[in-house]
């Protein structure tokens, strides 16, 4: 039992100024196991991984690799020790091709002076064939987030590592892509590679991992074989209290008062003839494969991008939005799926992020920002969303991934919107906070705010929404409500070509 431990961490601590991110953590990883790490947002999961990868230096504690105490002083050294890391936040070079990105790490250790592009590309194809069919010569900036995430994973796979760390790799992946990844993970584990797998999704942990460790507030709570523990126990250990209802109540009495009426929305390249309505009190879900045009449709409604024709009626009033400013003024807002790219201002204070949508709310009559009001706003919304942070004047970059998402969400709520489009609203958010967000969405819907949720996580859509629209190739291919809302039905509508379409 003991001798197959490849990595042992004992009594490790790490602080960021006053924030104690890790407090005497113990952790051990066995050879060839898939070891899940779970914990609330800000529990210290990413911090521990950053320590293992040499990005951060611990304040105290011991790391023992293969029986030898080591001091991992840099990611390069971690790489030499056989540690590969797929980060929670995507860190690719946008202006460089997929192939070159994949081999950046390798190029780094190679001794040759010249770049052999043809070989790079050939090798990239090899690695990629296992994962997906992305063209390796395409520039990374032209890829969707999910494909970028796949590139990140491929990058780690090319390094011959003994320990592979995956920090929420599936947050941006579709179900099918995630399944492929699990297959690969299992194959690697069978080859004797140890995998640390961080996720907020219990299903993934219980279906694919061998053991699970739970962290809370920078401390190690428990490590168990998944066969010997229940998902609810893990959740309870994570949050330190009992969560009984993962999803809020569904809508009680359907109303036929229409909030949003979209008619024949068309954008030449990306979607055609999209028509749907949203009734009062209802939470509408939008499902579809990545690239089907889900985000494009709602961004089109908000005038964030694209040249859209068609009609949008909000509460019986025809909207003539020329740009997103108009949209915000009408109370129609969009929560972006790419939090780091366009959701938050990483180097600005939390309070300044929350107020960004409408500064008038925190300013006085002559346009002077009242920092007291601004902080109070951030504090109130932060409290509502259970945001974990040191000080509201700290930059958003100092927050854990899930807490950054909460800042992005607080920003949307700050303007008391009438209609919110949420694109992957709980990406990277922990179970506790997730059900909190779901509860807030339900509350808002009951108050009469229009809620449209896009999510790649089908259980979330099914659990939260009253009705789900399915988008395929830029068209609405169907909708499901009530008992029809099953993963199978949705996947069927999202992927199968029916006879009608193939004629057209």
């Amino acid at each position: 039992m003991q001798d197959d431990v490849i990595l042992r961490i004992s009594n490790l601590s790490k602080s960021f100024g006053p924030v104690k991110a890790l407090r005497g953590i113990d952790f051990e990883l066995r050879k060839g196991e898939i070891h899940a790490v779970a914990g609330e947002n800000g529990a210290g999961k990413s911090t521990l991984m950053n320590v293992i990868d040499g990005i951060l230096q611990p304040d105290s504690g011991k790391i023992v690799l293969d029986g030898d105490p080591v001091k991992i002083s840099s990611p390069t050294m971690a790489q030499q020790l056989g540690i590969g890391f797929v980060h929670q936040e995507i860190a690719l070079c946008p202006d460089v091709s997929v192939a070159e990105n994949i081999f950046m790490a390798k190029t780094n250790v190679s001794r040759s002076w010249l770049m052999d592009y043809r070989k790079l590309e050939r090798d990239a194809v090899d690695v990629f064939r296992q994962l997906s069919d992305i063209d390796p010569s395409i520039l990374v900036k032209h890829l969707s987030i999910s494909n970028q995430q796949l590139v990140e994973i491929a990058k780690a796979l090319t390094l011959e590592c003994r320990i592979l760390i995956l920090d929420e790799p599936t947050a941006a992946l579709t179900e099918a892509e995630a399944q492929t990844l699990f297959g690969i993970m299992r194959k690697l584990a069978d080859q004797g590679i140890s995998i640390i797998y961080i996720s907020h999704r219990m299903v993934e942990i219980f279906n694919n991992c061998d053991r699970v460790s739970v962290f809370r507030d920078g401390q190690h709570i428990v490590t168990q074989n998944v066969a010997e523990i229940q998902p609810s126990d893990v959740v309870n250990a994570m949050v330190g209290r009992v969560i009984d209802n993962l999803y809020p109540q569904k809508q009680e009495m359907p109303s036929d008062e229409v909030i949003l009426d979209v008619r024949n929305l068309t954008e030449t390249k990306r979607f055609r003839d999209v028509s749907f309505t949203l009734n009062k009190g209802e939470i509408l879900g939008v499902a579809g494969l990545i690239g089907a045009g889900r985000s494009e449709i709602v961004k089109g409604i908000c005038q964030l991008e694209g040249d859209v024709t068609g009609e949008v009626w909000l509460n019986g009033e025809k909207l003539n939005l020329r740009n997103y400013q108009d949209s915000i003024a009408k109370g129609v807002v969009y929560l972006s799926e790419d939090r780091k790219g366009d959701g938050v201002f990483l180097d600005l204070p939390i309070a300044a992020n929350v107020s960004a949508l409408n500064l008038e709310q925190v300013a006085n009559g002559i346009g002077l920002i009242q920092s007291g009001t601004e902080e109070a706003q951030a504090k109130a919304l932060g409290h509502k969303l259970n945001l974990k942070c040191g000080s509201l004047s700290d930059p958003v970059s100092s927050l854990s991934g899930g807490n950054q998402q909460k800042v992005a969400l607080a920003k949307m709520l700050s303007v008391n919107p009438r209609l919110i489009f949420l694109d992957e609203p709980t990406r990277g958010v922990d179970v506790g906070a997730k059900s909190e967000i779901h509860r807030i969405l339900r509350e808002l819907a009951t108050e009469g705010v229009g809620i449209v949720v896009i999510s790649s996580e089908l259980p979330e859509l099914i659990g939260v929404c009253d009705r789900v629209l399915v988008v395929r190739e830029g068209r609405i291919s169907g909708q499901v409500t009530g008992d029809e809302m099953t993963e199978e039905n949705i996947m069927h509508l999202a992927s199968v070509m029916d006879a009608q379409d193939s004629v057209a």
Partner: protein
Amino acid sequence: MSGDTKMDNTVNLTPAGSSDSAPLLKRMLRMRETGLIVIILGLFVIMSFASPYFLTWANMRAMSMAFAVDGLLVIGMTILLISGGIDLSVGSVTALAMVIAGWLFLSGIDPWVASAMAIALCTAIGAFMGFFVTRVGLHHFIVSLAIMVIARGACLLFTGGRPLGLYTLPPEFKFIGQGSIGPIPIVIVIFLVFVIAFDFMLRRTTMFRKVFYTGSNEKAAAYSGIRTKKVIFLTTTLCSTLCGVAGIIYMARFGSAQPTFGLGLELTIIAAAVIGGASLNGGSGSILGAILGVILLSLVSSSLALLDVSVYWQDIIRGSILLAAVTIDHYLNKRRG
């Protein structure tokens, strides 16, 4: 931008009230402005021992006159840097303002009207650059590099390469560059008004907050409903307008218009802004810091001059200060991260 209220009622990893004074102290030390003030005061003390002439009223006055007008340029540059841009043309555009105003005056136009026209021209130049950056989609660096060369060429064209003597400028016009209210030079008064006004606006107004948003993450700003192109257009234009104002003040002060004025000035200005905390990546910077940066650089120059250090050495020393300041800052930031 905001105070340091603790979030009391959220679940916080820090045990309540653990060490409240320590972070505050650290924050104070970290504040670049404080560091710069300490360095400037230190230099003051050293120089007052090193040169008996240093602490005289005449020297103080000369030194403050030296950085006051550049201070206007650094305000514009800092705001532009915060929005994510840069302007290499400040030196030439300032010279152009002088030359155009002087030339108009010599051709018989009232000096005030001539000045207003020159400032308007500079504003137009800024708008022109803003157009190329925001509508055509070129980079600030390239556009302003082109304007730098063009504006300098125009200066030489209008003057035939010789300074324009403007001895006939009416005294009330020269007063803005040479006069004093009591003991305080008008130039300093103008400088202080601009600094206080812009520092306040940058810290407090919604208008300038949008500059920070835009520079910090242009896409996130657009997704927050901010017209980022408009913001960038305006900051680019503002920088050139301030060049116009500075050019006019210089003209009043020198009583002449020199086509070769301000060669290399853009580098001093950018250096000052960066020493004062502006980031070339946009999203950060402060007027107070940038002004302290200008003061530091100009203090160093006049100290070296007083100590009879060769001009050639001065550039080497100023460059080294820039490098040192940016390096120290880099490490402070890294420690924070």
